[in-house]
């Protein structure tokens, strides 16, 4: 069986959640597999992460270089090419780093590439059967991947459930000497941390969240009126920010904010995984969408199939009436 590696994303000495998920994905390719963790970085932070993986991985390959202190995908790609054996399978989380790293890496490794894998069904010989999603999660697809000359598989964060840890007492191997001087035509300059914005949606208990279904800038007021009426705050999904109808600080999702409300009203939001990944703490999730097949209905507690542009104003009016009648 082909050797399986897991690229470990880490920051400030802490491994990303995907570190444990990749073990689960590797076991789905080959139950007998003992995947090898591979990490790039520098200094004591890297050593700390390597140490923290010894419960989950039997073998941990460390590539320590000053140039790799920040994970510039262009440099990481070159380093991995020096270290990884030919024909191996490499698992990488499908996040902003994996999207940057993996397609080009697969070309340089002459390996097959499949991105955003959500499930692994079977393997027969070199024929790996995977599940992906298309059309914003509306449909899933089975994909066949020929891994005979290796593969780079980007797996969706959160899609693979970490296995119960069995203390493996893993071995950390220093592979740094395999990597020579690294050069690049892309240089990391700095990170600009997101502006907090006027309203902190991450602390709000009730969110009226709007998506593409709001259709026009002027319609944002419909959601704002409902939010004002119930003492909630308006948040949104990516298309609303792309259209510049709301500020970036209102966006829920991997590229926006992580929220932990008690109640989340998803209005005209289809439910992409990047959006859902930003909703934590298992809130009571109400989805209002006119497309009964919208993926959001799979994860919501309660669904309403209706046109939100008509539904929300009526809901707001009814709430106002019921509050008045109680006085």
């Amino acid at each position, binding site marked *: 069986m082909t050797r399986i590696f897991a690229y470990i994303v880490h920051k400030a000495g802490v491994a990303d959640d995907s570190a444990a998920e990749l073990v689960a994905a590797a076991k789905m390719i080959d139950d007998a597999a003992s995947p090898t963790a591979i990490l790039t970085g520098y200094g004591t932070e890297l050593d700390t992460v390597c140490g923290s993986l010894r419960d989950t991985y039997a073998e941990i390959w460390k590539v320590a270089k000053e140039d790799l202190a920040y994970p510039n995908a262009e440099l990481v790609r070159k380093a991995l090419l020096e270290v990884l054996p030919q024909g191996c399978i490499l698992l990488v989380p499908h996040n*902003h780093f994996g*999207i940057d790293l993996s397609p*080009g890496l697969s070309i340089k490794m002459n390996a097959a590439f499949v*991105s955003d894998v959500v499930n692994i069904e079977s393997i027969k010989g070199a024929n790996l059967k995977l599940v992906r999603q298309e059309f914003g999660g509306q449909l899933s697809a089975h994909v066949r991947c020929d891994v005979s000359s290796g593969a780079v598989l980007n797996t969706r964060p959160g899609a693979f459930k970490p296995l119960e840890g069995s203390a493996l007492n893993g071995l950390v191997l220093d592979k740094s000497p395999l990597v020579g001087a690294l050069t690049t035509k892309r240089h990391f300059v*700095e*990170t600009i941390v997101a502006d907090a914005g006027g309203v902190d949606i991450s602390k709000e208990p009730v969110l009226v969240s709007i998506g593409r279904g709001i259709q026009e800038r002027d319609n944002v007021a419909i959601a704002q009126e409902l939010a004002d009426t119930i003492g909630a705050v308006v948040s949104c999904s990516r298309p609303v920010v792309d259209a510049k109808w709301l500020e970036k600080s209102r966006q829920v999702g991997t590229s926006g904010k992580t929220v932990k409300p*008690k109640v989340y009203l998803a209005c005209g939001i289809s439910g992409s995984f990047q959006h859902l990944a930003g909703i934590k703490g298992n809130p009571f999730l*109400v989805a209002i969408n006119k497309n009964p097949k919208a993926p959001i209905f799979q994860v919501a507690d309660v669904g309403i199939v209706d046109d939100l542009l008509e539904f929300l104003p*009526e809901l707001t009016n009814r709430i106002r009436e019921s509050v008045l009648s109680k006085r």
Partner: protein
Amino acid sequence: MEILVCIKRVPDTSENEIELNSNGNDIERDDLVYSVNEADNYAVEEALQIVAREGGNVTVVTVGSDEDDESLRREMAMGANRGVLISDEAFSSSDGKGIATILKAYVQQEHYDLILTGVQAEDSAAQIGGMLAAMLDYPFAALVNSIQVMDARKLKITREIEGGSKEVNEIELPCVLSIQTGINEPRYVGMKGIRQVASLNIPTLGLSELRVDASAVGEFAARVKREDYFVPAMGEGAEILQGSREVIIEKLIELMRAKGALK
């Protein structure tokens, strides 16, 4: 600056409910509304804005079929100077690597300083730009959400990373960038604009013009193949509230009260 933007014509998910066909091996393609992939419009707009500041030309290219003519014309109506259609029977059912191989052959016949793609298309693979860059040995950056030209050889770009933060990079030209949605506001294309480009010539290039090795593209070369589509398992699924809108609103208000969203 000579800029190439790679675009793709895709079923428009905001205009269609995507359904399985009766065989389950594809989506129901009759009566589908197709559009240019959303992120690609942002890439074309970005290219046009760079050229407006720095001078140069914008070329849009797609690997597809005759039906892609209208997609190229739409981007030309936005202001792209040139459209190029790459089409050949031999290219059908190529995987991502196959498409990148075809584009590489085209790029090597021309001279481009900057190559842009949308960050991803309807299949959310997000792969062509990075593959193309690797084949050309150009530097690459994904999820780019701002571009500033520093000089004739260098750009300052930002990439979108987690939590709305940005990663600033300097990248040498020529390079390939995948463009994230929201980087700009793509201009509106009206019927008048489409009419104005209706008679412009769009060359079609195939296997022989591009001198692509037929064994490196198409179905035979593809190591990644989609086998079928299926409707994802619903899991628990939401309880869909039934009844008239009035009844549903009453139920919802009750639920919101119970969950503490209403007093």
